[in-house]
């Protein structure tokens, strides 16, 4: 029971993915692959069939766009680098004064 109530703790990420894929996969198969007894309108079935591929491609596009955006907005910290150089200068001067043999 505790495993069911705290799925995050009990299941690995891989496990979660497999469960999720199994769930979605079976739902898709049930609806899209023309099982006997289920009569969906033709356009709906036509849309459902390539859906997994569409989702994959959409995810690929999303990934490229996200990484591209994050790459473009990756901060270059000029000030921080300059400040660090200042600190290093001050440190070397002070340490030398205190007798450190570099």
């Amino acid at each position, binding site marked *: 029971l505790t495993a069911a109530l705290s799925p*995050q*703790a009990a299941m*690995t*990420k*891989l496990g979660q993915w497999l469960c999720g894929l199994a769930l979605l996969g079976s739902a898709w198969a049930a609806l899209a692959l023309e099982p006997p007894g289920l009569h969906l309108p033709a356009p709906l079935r036509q849309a459902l069939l390539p859906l997994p591929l569409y989702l994959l491609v959409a995810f690929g596009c999303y*990934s490229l766009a*996200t*990484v591209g955006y*994050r*790459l473009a907005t*990756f*901060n*270059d*910290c*000029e000030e*921080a*680098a300059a*400040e*660090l150089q200042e*600190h*290093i200068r001050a*440190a*070397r001067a*002070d*340490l030398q004064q*205190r*007798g*450190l*043999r*570099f």
Partner: protein
Amino acid sequence: MAASGAGKVSVLLPTYNERENLPLVVWLLVRTFQESGNNFEIIIIDDGSPDGTQEIAEQLEKMYGSDKILLRPRPRKLGLGTAYIHGMKHATGNFIVIMDADLSHHVSLYFIKQKEGNFDIVSGTRYKGNGGVYGWDLKRKLISRGANFLTQVLLRPGASDLTGSFRLYRKEVLQKLMEKCVSKGYVFQMEMIVRARQLGYTIGEVPITFVDRVYGESKLGGNEIVSFLKGLLTLFATT
């Protein structure tokens, strides 16, 4: 007024061939702590560096006192994880700061953030706020962002930067995590955050600037990428 043990920081500095950087890092740390008034100690864990790091560490110990600079060397290169375990055994603070002993990390204090939310862990992030990098070419930035994106998708860790290594931990939290973590290298840092989330610890984030190594060589290459991917997939399958 807080009791003398409360709010003491132990900084763990594992070093290997950091003869040039070490005095600068120590000087910056001492100055920062003196300005903020925190009680502190710096534990230098040198893995038998051939360049004389230990010798310079001894000079620093004489300069600042052996209550502030603790030398706990090891005979040879034994790895980062064990260096932290070794260092923690000698730490008397109730907070532990882990940072690279090169000058990649701008020395600053995370206690303001920690107090803000009473966090168990405060992690530096290069990817949010005014955090960032300096001296990185496009290729390196792309690899970094790509790897981080993959990590976010696969692990959903709840922290924006998993491979940074400037962190503040409560001592008992770090001890608990060290027991549970098994990876090596970059992946070890990632595993700590993932396990911390699983154990319900709170994580605060602070933007940090990652200035490219001022001295010494950076450790990023094809091998690192492959071992990162292997480690990521291992974490994906086991946590």
